[in-house]
């Protein structure tokens, strides 16, 4: 099961990394003579109402969504590592402030928090800026949960033998934290990183569907899935669900791969 999941992920990531090699056209090329074309040899998934090749947009959109989610997961894990480890290490007021901030963040439903923070940023931004905004937003807002896990791990390591010995030998606090504590938190950080990726893919899709994700003409799974809002269009062109099918397959594959990885960690 895991090997099938990894093979699918490998294939999708390969397509996502070099979309130019697979996509028949650019994501913004408009074939004005063929709007809303059905699937054919020229357009395997047909075209949208602007005459853009759906397959090309799906391949480019896969790059945006996958790489964005991985980058956001990396950012969230980095913030979680720094904030969680520092709170556990410094203790006292720092720890209490950290706990209050994460409690507050976790008390609100995740999507509401994303909506509120996204709404405070400009909505009419350039497509590339919208990618950066979405990625930074997911990474920043999504770091609260992992940070709590990292803090719990760091607190247990704080009183471990190697930490006590390091302190007794006079090792400076920062060196202890960076050289000894963080490497021991690696399994926790890896699992938090892997668990965040599917969560961020789903969140980007939800944000895109609500019109708060990556801006057009740049494709992403979120704004490609937005086409599904029209029932009559979906009923007449069932191949429009291809982005949703790919998204679900990738998230399932990630969950299978992550669960197996978690068991080994």
């Amino acid at each position, binding site marked *: 099961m895991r090997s099938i999941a990894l093979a699918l992920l490998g294939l999708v990531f390969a397509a996502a990394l070099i979309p130019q090699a697979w996509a028949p056209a650019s994501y913004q090329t408009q074939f004005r003579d063929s709007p809303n074309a059905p699937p054919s040899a020229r357009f395997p998934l047909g075209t949208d109402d602007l005459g853009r090749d759906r397959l090309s947009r799906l391949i480019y959109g896969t790059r945006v969504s996958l790489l964005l989610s991985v980058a956001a997961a990396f950012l969230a894990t980095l913030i979680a590592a720094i904030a969680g480890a520092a709170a556990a290490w410094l203790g006292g007021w720092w720890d209490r402030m950290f706990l209050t901030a994460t409690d507050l963040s976790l008390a609100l439903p995740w999507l509401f928090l994303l909506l*509120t923070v*996204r709404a405070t940023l*400009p909505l009419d931004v350039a497509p590339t800026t919208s990618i950066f905004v979405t990625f930074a937003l997911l990474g920043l807002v999504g770091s609260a949960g992992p940070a709590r896990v990292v803090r719990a791990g760091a607190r247990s390591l704080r009183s471990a033998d190697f930490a006590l010995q390091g302190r007794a030998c006079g090792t400076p606090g920062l060196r202890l934290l960076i050289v000894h504590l963080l490497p021991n938190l690696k399994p926790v950080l890896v699992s938090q990183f892997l668990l965040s990726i599917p969560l961020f893919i789903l969140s980007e899709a939800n944000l895109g*569907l609500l019109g708060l994700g990556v801006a057009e003409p740049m494709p992403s799974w979120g704004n490609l899935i937005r086409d599904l809002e029209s*029932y009559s269009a979906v009923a007449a062109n069932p191949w429009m669900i291809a982005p949703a099918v790919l*998204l*679900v397959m990738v998230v399932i594959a990630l969950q299978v791969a992550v669960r197996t990885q978690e068991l080994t960690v």
Partner: protein
Amino acid sequence: MLAGRILRSLSGLAATAVVGGLCAATLVRLAPGFDVDEREFDSRLNDASRHAIHESRSGERNLGRFYVHYLAGIVRGDFGVSHSLRRPVRELLAERSPVTLRLVAWGLAFGWTLGSGLAIAAWRIRAVDLLSGVLFAVLLSVPAAVLGLAVLFAGAGRSLAIGLVVLPKVFTYTRSLIAKASASPHVVLARAKGAGEVRILAWHIGPALAPELFSLAGISISLAFGAAIPMEAVCDIPGLGQLAWQAALGRDLPVLVILSLLLTVITMLANGVADTVTDRLGMESGA
């Protein structure tokens, strides 16, 4: 002791809600273009009218003053006026809260009934375990908004979509708890003494699971409210989720602040009640 704990929880809840509302207000206040009203772009208005519209939001420019006034208003029952919908927030909440509460309540009832029922069935029937595992892995991989669209297109009840978000989590967690509890020594002993499966479930496994299921209940309420936002937005349901989405798009400060306060209170209250019940049950069972 219990009264002291409840008092501490309530004061913590109030403090977190106030800080949460302040954070939401700060974020929206600092957002670029916050003090721009779309009516100012109406070419039919003269400079004096534009100036009057601009000045009507001057009370919100000083964040500290706005928030103190706003909190004082809340105490009096005045939640302000929505900029985007041009109606008192109190009216909007009164209109939309029942819609969302009904949606969430039915969704939770569906998710919990089917999820826990299937978890019990999966404990004894291997085929149910396998099928449910596959089905719920797929459900967990579908964005909530897409689930909402699927339910809408299928013509099913809208709360089904919320139920489908909660269901996999309830099933997965309950299933693993039952598996863990059924391997514990007192259950093995009961089975060795010839107790039937129904009796084992009702008398030995059920009470052991209750504290953790109450914790899950608290979390699932927050999950259901979170799922209501995309669901109501894509299905055009006039509830609090749709209001949150419209307020986010329109940078509607009074609505966003009150919704932050409301959702923080609901989530923390649900988790607080679940924690208190969990502790009580844990103490009674001697855990």
